[in-house]
Structures are given as structure tokens and as C-alpha cells.
């Protein structure tokens, strides 16, 4: 009976595998050498970014081009070839207003309700979220009992799907919801939280802050932890009061993180859709109809689907986002230069 040496067998298999692996890995060598010779002046880079560019082109750039095309067409047909060209008619229709501050004076009143709702939502949500995230980050940066638990607890809603977030809060806020049950148990009258336009709007802001605050808190917390401790020690030696330390040390050094939070928060707030769509469906009336929901309703949900109008509205939204992003980026660059 012959006993084979397992080590020898293994090393033999490893050798075979190694050769195979080497052969496979060397396969691109010849074509790469050829490409290097054929593509001079550093054009080889295109070969590497090509596949990525192709995917980007098909799934990002092409839809943008299609969106531009659709915004200039009318009718209800889906296929581009079946759609009549109407030029800037959709934009003109969206922007046709006697008084831009009064949606009821506009041809597309729902669009302007959506614009003003979104503007109000963005201002409130972003500013409140920034303040709450900052306070939370400052608290969680201190050595408090159960700090790890609280950090996890504040981040937890970020892990939830927006639909789940909305369903949880709908369960809390509806007329027969948990909150009203608590009110009734406490001898109070139930409140129609989602039936009143102002309170429904307020709850959409609150729920959105609740759902996303953890993420921004985390960014600010990382920013706080990057501030060198010796600066605080120097301030402590100078007996600087806490608010002055915050104003003169923490806030300026945290500004790059604050700007990141602002940019991301702003973009996300303008794009608000899923949570609100499930929570209120844009109601009562159109009190919580935001811009993305208007686009969705116009293009996909309404029985007479006006793809052209929806495309035009989406381009206007994209324009607003672009401007906001550029302003923020300019602000960030300014701050960076100052520090540099």
C-alpha cells in the first residue's frame, strides 16, 4: 500500500493552480502591450475608463438627453417617435403665472404649490436638522454614560427603509393611531394630525428629520473628533467660557463638516418623495405635495400621463439643484482657501 505525501500533493496542485492563474493573468498582457503601442500620448487611460463611461452614458447621460427631448414634446404617448414636438410649450405652461407667490394665479397651480411647499420644507427641514444634528453630535462627543448606545440609537432610523419610516409614523399619527390613543388615555381629545394642512406639513418635516438626522450627526461627530484636543486644552488653560470655546474653536473648525451636511441635506430635502408619499400622499389637498411627487403624479400616476410636462418640471428641478450645489461648492472652496 503506497501512502502519498499530502504536502507534496498539495504543493503539486498549488503549482498547477499557480501556473493556471499566471496564464490567465498574463492573457491581457499581449493586447495591453499592443494597446500601449497603438495608443500613444497617455490615451491608454480611455481604455480603462471606457467601460465605466459606457455604463454612465447608457444609464445616466442618455436618460438626461431623453429627458431634454421629452420636455419639448407633448401628448400622452410614451414612445418618442409618437410624440409631437411642442418646443418650449411645457416650460411656458409651467411658468405661466400672474403672481408667482400665489399658486392659484398660475396655469399649473399644482406645480407652484409643489414649488412653495418644497421651498418651505427645504428651509425648515435643513435648518432644523442641522441644529438638531449639531446639538446631538456635541452631546454624543462628550463622555456621557451609554454613549455607544445613544450613538447607535440616533443612527438606527437611517437604516430603515423610507417606506417603513412612513408606515411607522402613519401608524402613530393617524386618527386611530398610537398618539391619539395616548391622548384619549390621558383624557384629551384626539387630534387630526394628518387632516390639517399645517400640522400635516409639520409632521412631514419632523419625520424627515427623524429619519435622516442620524446620518448627519455621524458626519458632524467625525468632524468634532478630528478637532485636535490640544486646542481645547489651551482654551481651558485660558479659562475660556464654554460658549466662546464653541463659537471660536468648535464651530470654525467644524465648518467643513457643516458645509458637507448642508450640501447633502439640501439636495436630499429638495428631492423629498418616498416618506411623504407613503405618509400623506401629498395631502390634505396638496399641502404636502412636493416637487418630485408632482413630477411622479404628472408623468406616471395620473391617468392622462403628461410625460413632457413631467420632464420639463424635472429639468427645472435639476436646474435648481445644480445652482444650489454650485453655491455650496463655492462656499466650501472659499472656506478651504481661508484655512489653507
Amino acid at each position, binding site marked *: 500500500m503506497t501512502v502519498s505525501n499530502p504536502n507534496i500533493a498539495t504543493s503539486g496542485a498549488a503549482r498547477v493552480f499557480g501556473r493556471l492563474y499566471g496564464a490567465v493573468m498574463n492573457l491581457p498582457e499581449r493586447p495591453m502591450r499592443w494597446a500601449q503601442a497603438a495608443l500613444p500620448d497617455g490615451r491608454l487611460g480611455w481604455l480603462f475608463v471606457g467601460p465605466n463611461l459606457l455604463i454612465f452614458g447608457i444609464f445616466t447621460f442618455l436618460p438626461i438627453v431623453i429627458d431634454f427631448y421629452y420636455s419639448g414634446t*407633448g*401628448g*400622452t*404617448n*410614451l*414612445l418618442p417617435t*409618437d410624440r*409631437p414636438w*411642442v418646443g418650449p410649450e411645457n416650460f411656458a405652461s409651467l411658468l405661466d403665472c400672474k403672481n408667482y407667490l400665489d399658486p*392659484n394665479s398660475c*396655469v399649473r*397651480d399644482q406645480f407652484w*404649490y409643489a414649488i412653495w411647499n418644497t421651498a418651505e420644507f427645504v428651509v425648515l427641514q435643513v435648518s432644523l436638522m442641522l441644529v438638531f444634528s449639531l446639538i446631538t453630535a456635541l452631546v454624543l462627543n462628550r463622555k456621557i454614560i451609554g454613549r455607544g448606545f445613544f450613538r447607535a440609537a440616533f443612527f438606527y432610523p437611517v437604516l430603515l427603509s423610507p417606506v417603513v419610516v412612513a408606515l411607522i409614523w402613519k401608524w402613530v399619527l*393617524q*386618527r386611530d393611531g398610537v398618539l391619539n390613543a395616548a391622548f384619549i388615555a390621558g383624557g384629551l381629545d384626539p387630534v*387630526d394630525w*394628518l*387632516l390639517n*394642512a399645517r400640522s400635516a406639513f409639520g409632521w412631514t418635516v419632523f419625520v424627515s428629520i427623524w429619519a435622516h438626522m442620524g446620518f448627519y450627526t455621524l458626519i458632524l461627530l467625525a468632524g468634532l473628533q478630528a478637532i485636535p484636543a490640544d486646542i481645547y486644552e489651551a482654551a481651558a488653560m485660558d479659562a475660556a467660557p464654554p460658549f466662546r470655546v464653541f463659537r471660536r474653536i468648535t464651530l470654525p473648525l467644524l465648518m467643513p463638516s457643516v458645509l458637507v451636511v448642508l450640501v447633502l441635506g439640501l439636495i436630499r430635502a429638495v428631492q423629498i418623495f418616498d416618506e411623504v*408619499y407613503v405618509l*400623506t*400622499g*401629498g*395631502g*390634505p*389637498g*396638496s*399641502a*404636502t*405635495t412636493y416637487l418630485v411627487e408632482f413630477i411622479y*403624479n404628472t408623468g*406616471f*400616476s*395620473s*391617468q*392622462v*400621463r*403628461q410625460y413632457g410636462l413631467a420632464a420639463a418640471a424635472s429639468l427645472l428641478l435639476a436646474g435648481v439643484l445644480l445652482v444650489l450645489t454650485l453655491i455650496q461648492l463655492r462656499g466650501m472652496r472659499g472656506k478651504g482657501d481661508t484655512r489653507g
Partner: protein
Amino acid sequence: MLAQMPLRTSVSALALLVLGGIAFAQAADIRIACYSDGNECPATKTLAERFMKDNPDIHIQIDEMPYKSILESVPVQLAAGNGPDIARVSDFSQVVPYQLDLTPYLKDAAYWEKAYGPVLDWMRAGPEDKGIYGLMTQLTVSAPIVNKTLFDQAGVPVPAKGATWDDWAAAALKVAKATKTPFGMAWDRSGARFAGPAISEGAKYFYAAGHPPVVDDGYKTMAAKWVKWNQDGTVDKDVWVATGGGYRDAFEEFANGKIAVYLSGSWQLARLQKQIGDGFEWVVGSAPCGPAACTGMPGGAGFVAFKGTKSPKEVAKFLDYLAQPAVYGEWMVMTSNLPANVELQKQKLDYKLSPAGSAAMSMFQENATTLTPLAYKLQGSQLSRPMFNATVDRISQAIAGQITLDQAYDRITADVADAAAAKAKK
């Protein structure tokens, strides 16, 4: 093993395999996109299995999906050339451009005209269109459904035949107050539900020339009442106002005893029996009246065939099978639906319902007899959905206090005109 077989047996086996393969390859596949109000899809599946036994060369696949998916996805799939062969739809205007005229494939198109004539128009593009595009899976009629237990507890009689909408609203509110029920009444969040009462109040919806202006005195009377009832607590505001967007039914509110009167329709019968059963006594009331009529709205869903199918003959064969009186009658009994077949409407189908279900079915059938021609015409109009949607959207805004009723009327007119213009652009 093959080598051990005699040559003749091997060749025969091979030939069988090849022929079997060819037969399998030639089997027509029919995909049906279906949604259920009650058990329509499972019932159709049972009949389809029976049909496939008799027609082994046809394979039918029924994909059950939510109503909203049918409403939103199927028209897009059809436009992209990737739709099902048949779909159960309730909004025919959206799929009109993709419908397949079954007439050349039907054994007896005259039978279809005779048996389903009044509802075939609902699937047609206009008065000049004479095609046959599908089969109604039911005829529905809207009517008030009453929590009789609450009425009895309150000592309030259920409004009788001939009672007006004002009588119904007053009775419902009285019951709600006496029994400490949150609200008296709720209507599904649907422009079609609103249209019956509006027509009863004298709304005309259509005018001789051009597009319908929708809003007239009859319409305004009903709209004003509806807004008032929502604001004074007669009606559960939650249904129309709390949720934006499209359709929402109030069945859960009714099933949970939170309202005394629920305006919905015959398609709820299966749910009423299954979900409420004998939880409380429920009855269907007579169609409430207005000065012009005592009408609800007819409606229903139908299996519509599409041009994109690779098997038009087989699609027509299956729908023809379902359309035959014996099968269609059985189908209606299985799904507790009113038949769209004119002959079967005259017969008394043995629904095998509970006593409450039987009484409800009789009332729905009785209410079907008071439906006005205008209600039928409105249901079949290519602009019915824009009219219904504008009603829901704008009246909800008025209830929420966002706009006045007069502003709502102007907007409804403008919305319908806008939708008509968008549809007309080619």
C-alpha cells in the same frame, strides 16, 4: 440502453420525442395580468385550467397583481411593446390604443353584440368604433351599504326607496351621534362614486357641442353638499382629505364599525361576506335620489385583449369560452358578481350566498335598473377618468380649505380641458 432497444422502437421513441417537442414549441402561451376585487383571479384560474384541459395546445398564465400596478404599469408595458396578452382593467381609456379587435377571431361576433352590447362601447374609442375588444368580468353598480346594527341601536329607520341624499346624510349623522360612532358616512375616494349622486342632483357632465364642461348647477349642488358634510362631521374626512393622490376605498372604516353608511358598490360583496360576515348586520340600500334621478354609477372591469399578442386566435378562443352563458354564469356565481351578459341579467343566478349576501345582491340588481343612460355614457367616455380625477383632486382641496369651491370648479373645468388637449395631441 438505447443500443439494447430494437431499432424500430428506438426510431419510434425518437420520433415521439421530436413530435412532442414540436407540439410543445407550438403551444400558445397567453399571459393575463389580473387583479382581484374579491376572488376574480383565482376563479378565472379555475376556469382557465378547465379550458386548458380541453385545449392542450394553449397555455394560460394568470399573473395576479395589485390594482394600482395594473393602472400604472400595464399601459407603460403596452406602450413599450412588452405587455401581457390580456389584462383585467377598469380604466379602458388608458389601453384603447393597444386593444386587439377580436371580431375576426370570434366564432360568433353577433352573439357578443347581443349578449354584451351595452358594455362593449366602454372599450371602444368612440361612437364610430365597432370593434369587440374584450369581455366584462362583471358589471358593477354603486350603492349605499348600511350598518343596520348601528341604525337599529339608534332606533333610526334605514332610508327607504325614494329617500334623497339629504335624508341619507341626516339619518347617518343621527345614527353616528346616537351610537357615538365617529362618523355617519363615507364614500370611496373616487370621482365615479361622486358622479352618481351628482347626476341624481341634475349634473349633465356632457353637452351637445365640444368637450364636457363638467361643472353645472347639478354638479355644484352635490359638490357643495359634499364639502359641507365633510366639514360638519357627517362624513369621514379622512377618506378624501387625509390622503392625497388617487383612489382610496373606505371599506376598512365600514368593516370596523366606524361609519354607518358607506357608498361603494357591488364589487365589495365578496369582501363584505368574508370580512364582516355576521360581525354586524349589513344591508344594501336603495339608490338615493335627487331631483333629477335615483342613480348610482355603473362600472366594472373587463378582460381586454391586446394587439401585441402572438396568439390572437387563442386569446379570442379563451375569451369566447368565458363569454358563453354557462361558463360566464358559473364565473359570476364563483365571484359573486353581477353579470354583464344581458340574458343572464334577466335570469336569477343561484349565487350560493349567505342570507345577507343574497339580500344585498338583490338590492344591487334592483339598483342596476335605476341607472340612467347618462351614467352609462359617462362611464364609457374617454374623458371619464380625467373628469373623475379632477373632481377628487379639486374637491379635496376645497374640503381642506386650500381653495374655495368656485376656484375648484374653475380648476376642474381647466383640468379636464387640459387632459382632453393632451390626449388629442398626436
